[in-house]
């Protein structure tokens, strides 16, 4: 009786196995890279209804973050400025721009401008800006150097692991409280070592960032 399966099939199981290992490994590696916030979020840069440039306002003009994000020290939300806030200056500045016309329209009609959300914290996570900016954590730690961004992009992964990394080692991020909105400031630029400075601030200010679930999830 002739063989039903030709001879080369003998190695087939092994080949399949090897192929599966490679495919599986590849999938795992791809998922590890592409399916994490580091890849899916960082660099996200949607175009906004008005091409507002932080580079000009916060960088060149040197406006403080809190001029527009006015409630950041009091509320969990760092509010997006009202159209009125923009218009206070722009009723005099660059009034011919079609984009300023949109702001004018919003102020006059009361209809909100729809900015596209860049940083999206899940519904079940409750992040609070005020406690961070009042405890020596700078805007730059989570948002990057926004003062150099013509269009805001997602700078850090903002995943839970990333949050916890800082909550467990806050000394990496702490800085004097008057340097919170100075995005160009670094410990090195002030001639200090970040770790030493962070440790000192952590101790003096009783910084014990919670790392239990209920701190952020409720």
């Amino acid at each position, binding site marked *: 009786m002739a063989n039903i399966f030709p001879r080369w099939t003998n190695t087939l199981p092994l080949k399949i196995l090897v192929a599966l290992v490679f495919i599986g490994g590849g999938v795992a590696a791809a998922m590890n890279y592409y399916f994490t916030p580091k890849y*899916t979020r960082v660099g*996200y840069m*949607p175009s906004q209804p008005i091409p507002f440039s932080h580079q000009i306002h916060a960088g060149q003009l040197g406006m403080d973050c809190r001029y527009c994000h006015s*409630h950041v*020290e*009091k*509320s*969990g*939300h760092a*509010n*997006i*400025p*009202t*159209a*009125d*806030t923009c218009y206070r200056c722009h009723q005099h500045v660059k009034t011919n721009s079609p984009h300023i016309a949109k702001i004018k329209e*919003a*102020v006059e*009609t*009361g*209809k*909100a*401008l*729809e*900015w*596209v*959300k860049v940083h*999206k914290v899940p*519904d*079940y996570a*409750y992040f*609070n800006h*005020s*406690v961070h*900016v*009042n*405890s020596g954590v700078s805007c730059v730690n989570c948002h990057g150097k926004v003062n150099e961004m013509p269009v805001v992009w997602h700078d850090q992964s903002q995943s839970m692991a990333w949050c916890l990394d800082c909550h467990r080692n806050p000394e990496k991020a702490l800085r*004097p*409280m*008057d*340097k919170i909105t100075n995005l160009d400031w670094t410990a090195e630029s002030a001639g200090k070592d970040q770790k030493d*400075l962070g440790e*000192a*601030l952590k*101790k*003096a*200010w*009783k910084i014990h960032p*919670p790392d*239990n*679930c*209920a*701190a952020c*999830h*409720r």
Partner: protein
Amino acid sequence: MKRIWQHPDEKTTGKRYWRSLNQLAERPGTLEARVREFPDGVEALKDEAEAETSRRNFIKLMGASTALAGLAACRRPEFAIKPYAKAPEWVIPGKVLFYATAMPRAVSGTPMVVHTFEGRPTHLQGNKLHPDSNGGLDIQAQASVLNLYDPNRAQSFQKAGVKADREEFYKFLDAKKAELAAKQGGGLAILIDEAVTPTRQRLLGELVKKHPQAKIYRHETFGQANVRVAYATAFEAGAAPAYDLSKADRVFSLDCDFMGQDRIGNNATGQFMVRRKADAPEDGPKMNRLYVAEGRFTVTGGMADHRLRVHTSQTLKAAVRLGIAVAELTGDAGLKAAAEAVKLAGSYQGHARSDKADFYSAFFKEAAKDLVEKKGASVVLAGSQQDAAVHLLAIAINQALGAFGTVIQIRQTGSLVAGTLDELAASAAGKQIDTLVVIGETDPVFEAPPDIVAGGLSAALKAVPNVIVHTTRPKTITAASSSWVVPATHYLEQWGDTRGSEGSLAVVQPMIAPLYSGVLSDVELLLAVLSDAPLAGQPAPAPSGPGQPEDTGFAFKAVRATFDAIVKDPSESKWNNALRDGFAAGSAYPSASAAAASMQAIGAALAQAKDVDIGEGLEITFVPCSKIHDGRYINNGWLQEAPDSMSKVTWDNVAIVSVKTGKALGINPFTEDSAEVISVEVNGLKRYYPVLMIPGHADNSVTIATGYGQASAGRVGKGTGFDAYALRSAATPYFAMVAPTAVRKITEKVSGSDAMKGIEGREEIPVVYPLGRTEEHHTMYGRALVREGTVEDWQKDKDFVMQQGTDGHLHGDREAKNAENSYSFYKPAAGNDENGKPIELLNDTLHQWGMVIDLNKCTGCTACTIACQSENNIPIVGKDQVIRGREMHWIRMDRYFATDLDSDAAQNGRKVEKEAWNEDNMDEPEMLVQPVGCQHCEAAPCESVCPVNATVHTPDGLNSMVYNRCIGTRYCANNCPFKARRFNFFDYNKRNPLVENSFLGIKHNSLYSGPFGQRQDTELSKLQKNPNVSIRMRGVIEKCTYCLQRIESARVEARAQGRRRRRLETGHSDEKLVIEDKDIRIPTDGIKTACQEACPAEAIAFGNRLDKDSAVEKWRKNSRNYELLGYLNVRARTTYLGRIKNPNLALLALSKLEKEKVGQGSKTRHVHVQTEGAAH
């Protein structure tokens, strides 16, 4: 080695605490059912067909949903941020903003503080600053925020049932006004409810001045009509009592449920409970004493130190007895003459007592002696459903007791001349009315007794050409038969005003612009009727919402004008203060000019009083529902699903009878999720009600809560309950006297009866009607956890609570027992530190949270349950799911009855056989309540069994629930000894549990249709949700979090603002800035949980256990403090203070039965039941 823990039996001290008749009778199978916390879903399916289709559906739907889920996950969703165009004043996005306002209602408006998020009202709390509030709220006020978001609310004008617009109505009104002006208002009638609204009252006064022929009528079924008549007779027109029960040492209630549905002010419970504060045994005798004479068990009756069963219809006789007894002791001839002037029909001796034949009369004598002893600090309260004669007697007795000027102040509330509904019905039938305007939340046609006028009110109103109904409920019978429906604003979206019971003016200010354009407030409607200028063709007035310039709304001006008229030297700053504080200082009602009641007038009026003999008959009493009141809240899901304080019935009303009467009717006492149905026939009308036996109810009496069984109640109230209004008569509106044969158990299902005609969702009534009743849900192996004693017991042994329950089984004093309890296998730790040493679990040195609940103050009103629901986004699940034991309330209110162990046939062991089941013992039980939520055990049994660490401890002592980790094994719920965990069997927040679907002809609840089920009206209900609490999804466990969101907000606030403040104070922003613990610690008692805030009795303390000044630490030092199931050594963070009763020793000496009834330790003989397997 596996160790099986044998729970020790409770030490029995002569009393039995039980939650249901089933439990008392220890019927086979019931314990097993109780132990199964979650009745299994498939087994609970009603029949084979349902099971079959469900399985098939399930597989089909699973396939579809998986496919859909795969597709939906591909794209990154884009979200928009929409900032305000102009920043509204005070609003900080993400922060709660509090506004003071008030809820206009009868007797006294309820002052409130409203939580708003970006302009959305989400949660209500009382306004503590107002003189007539202690910051608590009753159940209905608490739930009223949900009515704002009711999708069935009136949204547009209707002309004869057809949608119309405001312009059309104004055209009609303009034409009508011209007619009215010509006739001086002849033919115009305005029917209002009893809500206290000064501006409305002022405008009505102006209207009558302008149109002298116009008539005002006033109606509220459970209103103050009888009180008004009595006080007008005894004092002067417009006189009304304002009570301060904190000044009363002795309170006698004649059928007055003043802690429940019979409101005498916002703060009656709070003031009463001030005198129930007991820190140490010495405080015991300083407590007040409450006597209650009532027919049905109410929450007030449950708080009574002595409760006497008196038929509602016979309360007048009880009042006469009390009056004569007081008169004999005080020698008050006027009172004696007044009491004796009443012509009594028949002699009434109350309920017979086996051990003391004349207990009934002796009770009044002893109570009178006690009242007279505390002359000047004792008071008699009469229920508002009692005839004016009872109120007159109460006034006369109070005068003899010197209560006026001390406990009661007589205020002049200003008299509005208004007719009654009876008079309106007569005028309408007599065709004297051309235009009737109905304002308020009542439904007069539904509520009116059918014999109010020949043919009933609906026929009478047919003779009125124009009926204009101003309401938020567009489908009431009154509205349905009207010519115009004017959609009304909710009180949270209007300008208005109201006054507390003592008169302090509270301004109602809008929290939100009206959700539906075109709605009018009552003030706006009256202004429209009053205005001379034509309304049609004018631009609509700007809605008077927040963010709008205030003076554009014309209601605003009217409210302001009233303010200026009431407040002395009005000014802009006083107005602004009133808006900020929620009340105008110095605006209390003036004292009445008559300082004392006229005994002569009382005597003369009492001589005309009508009394009814009960004889061998049966009384049917009609009472306001503890949830939906007179029916106005029928479409409020929170109230519908709140278990009734007494019967624990949700979604329905039932007839309630005593155990003896029930037995005489042949009712099976042992129904679980159902009840047998009786027919009640009054004046030839037959109605059907499921019937429940509640011990402690008067015999030969049937109590039916009204308001249910509305023809068209909206999506929530549809098909719920049974109407009782139809059985009422105009002569005796709150009770009906019938022959015993008029009430019968039905033996076959009823369909096609006129009792169900036109009622949506009610086609037939089965012999056994299914009931969503939570009485036996989440019971704990039948263990009773409630502990109580008398003042005497407490003084004898300050740690008497430790002698009861499972702790009573241990030996020695409190310390020894605690030491014995402190044995544990479980050493909780928060992992290891770098050196491998275990980290202590509770390592927060700033805060450790705890709660204490004082059972001495808790009435069982369930306001906490509703407050919790409102704060924590807890969904309703519908009747079908409640029957399956799946209600989601984080706080359950356990209601226990306590009966004497001796006479409940327990002398021959603890078993009570069904046959030997002794209903004699069910006559005079005590009632105790205990709210139970998650106890936040330090060594939590739930945490150790969770396979995915979804429930873990926080360093500050909370047992927290991580929804995203939860995979729904429900192990935690099974291992929770307190049964405090709830499982989301369905996506209750997303799917509508109130709809029946039909698939292949088989009816099933919409929840079971999975993704094909009906969605909630999410846009509207979303607006109520608290943005700081996650909405839980199907398949996860949830439970009390100690209001984690409030703790976290406070902690963030303390840290952020503490550091910020220190930085600004010191000028340092680097390491020279030193932060101390005190800078970042939450201030003492700085957080209130939602339940604590809502509690009108102030029975809950919550706070930081590391703060020695906190209320919770002080309360824990009270010797009444005990932990539930302390022997488990779970170290619960919630503890309880045992209940203390303050009985009259003279009454205890009088009757053995009374002695057994009151207080556990008052028994001399302690029955020790030998325990087996107790492992200590």
